[in-house]
């Protein structure tokens, strides 16, 4: 049992922190978010060179074969600066391929992902953005030896740009993942005018898209893919929450009113202490979930839901208080507080909101039937 990073993990954290510090910053993040792609390809190239696209890809497919702890380390670092990149979307897609793909599918796509030649994403929900199996709005039907895909998907991270989309679709009522490469006829993508302006999400349309039989994966891993998505997103949120707190603490030390730094007033001090509680709780929950992913799969569903719940609480509250304790300046467009605030709201609902996460936890403690009507 150990609660500290290995030397390798510490090195990864240091390198990630450096990369993000060098490429983050308000202007760069805003410009990247507002660009057509939604991120800076040069920054992504740097991440690829540092091996981030290969972290969760098995060594057999040219990856690093590392775990959720390592993925969470880089996600948290990127989250601190809200640095846009296809890291999250691509890592979750890679996870989906590892979990549900056939060996042939894995051999086809994962080496390209590991090498940074291909970005990928997952399409897990309809346009309403809920994540119960019933909310999946893409449908597969058999057509000769293969299939056709119809319907739509919402809130697809980098969905207008990613080279490969792992789509959750219903086949005879069961959810299956299918790998749809960009450019497939009948696939349309429209970037959404999202509340979050530091990352891109798209609405996808599937209009009679041809899906060869060998593009359909095994079923039954929908909840698992969601859990990995949430565990990784939670790491990002935790990083963002910690940054929002740190920036606010720094401001409270410098901003003088009534002859002393506002951070010397108990009202401010105690509010910031309460935020520290949330950040520390998120930190504990995120690393616990990451460790479970790698070492205790039987606890992972609950741990991932817990991490998402705690990290959402932290980013939502820290960013709201970031605005407030900066005063008028914090309410301006030029200040970054609203970027964190926007990320707080959108990330809390992405891959399943607090109700969805508490439902998973309730299931784990035997309250499953009782909370069905709460979902």
């Amino acid at each position, binding site marked *: 049992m150990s609660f500290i990073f290995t030397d390798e993990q510490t090195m990864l954290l240091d390198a990630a922190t450096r990369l993000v510090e060098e490429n983050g910053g308000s202007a760069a993040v805003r410009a990247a978010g507002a660009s057509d792609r939604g991120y800076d390809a040069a920054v992504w190239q740097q991440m690829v060179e540092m091996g981030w696209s290969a972290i969760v890809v098995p060594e057999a497919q040219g990856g690093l074969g590392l775990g959720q702890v390592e993925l969470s380390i880089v996600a948290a670092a990127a989250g601190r600066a809200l640095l846009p990149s296809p890291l999250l979307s691509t890592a979750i897609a890679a996870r989906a391929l590892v979990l549900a793909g056939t060996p042939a599918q894995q051999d086809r796509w994962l080496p390209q992902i590991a090498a940074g030649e291909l970005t990928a994403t997952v399409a897990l929900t309809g346009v309403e953005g809920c994540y119960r199996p019933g909310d999946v709005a893409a449908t597969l039907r058999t057509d000769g030896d293969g299939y056709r895909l119809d319907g739509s998907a919402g809130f697809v991270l980098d969905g207008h740009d990613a080279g490969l989309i792992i789509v959750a679709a219903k086949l005879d009522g069961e959810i299956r993942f299918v790998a749809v490469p960009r450019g497939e006829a009948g696939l349309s993508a429209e970037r959404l005018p999202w*509340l979050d302006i530091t990352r891109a999400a798209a609405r996808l349309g599937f209009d009679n898209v041809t899906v060869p039989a060998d593009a359909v994966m095994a079923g039954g891993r929908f909840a698992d893919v969601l859990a990995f998505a949430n565990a990784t997103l939670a790491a990002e949120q935790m990083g963002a929450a910690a940054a929002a707190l740190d920036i606010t603490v720094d401001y409270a030390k410098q901003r003088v009113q009534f002859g002393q730094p506002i951070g010397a007033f108990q009202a401010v001090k105690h509010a910031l202490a309460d935020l520290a509680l949330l950040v520390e709780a998120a930190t504990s929950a995120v690393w616990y979930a990451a460790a479970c992913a790698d070492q205790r799969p039987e606890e992972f569903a609950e741990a991932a839901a817990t991490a998402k719940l705690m990290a959402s609480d932290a980013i939502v509250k820290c960013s709201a208080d970031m605005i407030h304790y900066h005063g008028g300046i914090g309410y301006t467009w030029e200040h970054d507080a609203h970027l964190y605030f926007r990320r707080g709201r959108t990330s809390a609902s992405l891959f399943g*909101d607090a109700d969805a996460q508490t439902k998973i936890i309730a299931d784990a403690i035997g309250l499953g039937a009782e909370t069905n009507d709460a979902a």
Partner: protein
Amino acid sequence: MRLDFTPEQEAFRAEVRTWLDAQLSGEFAHIREIQGISEGAEQRFPWERHLGRAGWNQLSWPKAFGGREANLFEQVIFHEEYARSGAPGRLSHVGLELVAPTIMAFGNDEQRQRFLKPTAEVEIIWAQLFSEPNAGSDLANVQTRARLEDRPGGQVWVLEGQKIWSSFAQYSQWGMALVRTEPGSVGSKGLSMLLIPLDAKGVDIRPIRQMSGGSSFNEVFLDGAETAAANVLGAAGEGWKVAMGTLTFERGVSTLGQQMGFRNELDHILRVAKENGAARNPGIAKRLARAQAELRTMRYTALRMLGGSGLSLAGLTYKLYYTSWHQRLGELAMDVLGPAGEIAVPGSDAYRLQKMYLESRSDSIWAGTSQIQRNIIAERGLGLPREGKAAR
């Protein structure tokens, strides 16, 4: 403890309603479409001037200043009917609710003669120039300076400094500015309240883009701006007293109009919740019911505050209460919309409610932060001791 209105009051209500309905189904029909506090200024000013010419803006004012001397209940009725009509809030709010009462209370006859009528008729739009980059919660820390200088036409105040967070200053012709007129003075001493023309040289007004995208607030740079020596409100050096007077006018009858705006927002959210099925989520339904309960409570608190005499504890708590309520309403609106609310297509429910959600974040900052409000409630309302001097 009576809830009903007299027949005379009900007749007044009918008069207001009839007038508003006529205007809003006629010449000003388009005005109901305008949403958000920073939209449609070019259509709103003619409407507000129209209200002023009809006497509604100055309803409660003394007859000597063109008012109707309406009592509290008539004011309550007007604000209720106005909000119910769906017409937008006032861009001329600062002039009508803050500057005009200050001029009435502290101005001399000449100033009242000169400014009140055009203010009521929205020929003058006013900006409040109190806050500065280093004088936010700590308002007494004003650094903008004014000194008297001789000019051919007589003495003038010459101003140097920077004001910030001035609502609608980009539309204003005049500003009411709290400035330091005694060199070397600190804190609340040595300040004066000057009325300054904003369309003159030495004044640079720059709108601030707020996090919701719109621009209601401005920075105002004063670099040799001038105003006649006579344009001081109250005596020179008594600016702090005048400013404190202004701030007490913030909790006037217009809070009832604000509440009707809240009512419209809650009704909008209720409609969406029923339409999209969010109301079937028991947690959402409970929060909607609670929002309803608290809004009703707020209304009665406002009536207690306005109907009582002097500064009541209810009055002191009012701003903090609605701030917290409105920010929670913003969150509830987003939860009612669900993730779809994150996608804001202009004109949609999501667009309007998302804007409200974002804009509500400023409530806890302006007009005294929630921390300042709690200090005031505790010290003035509960009589708790001030902190040790070093900590103020």
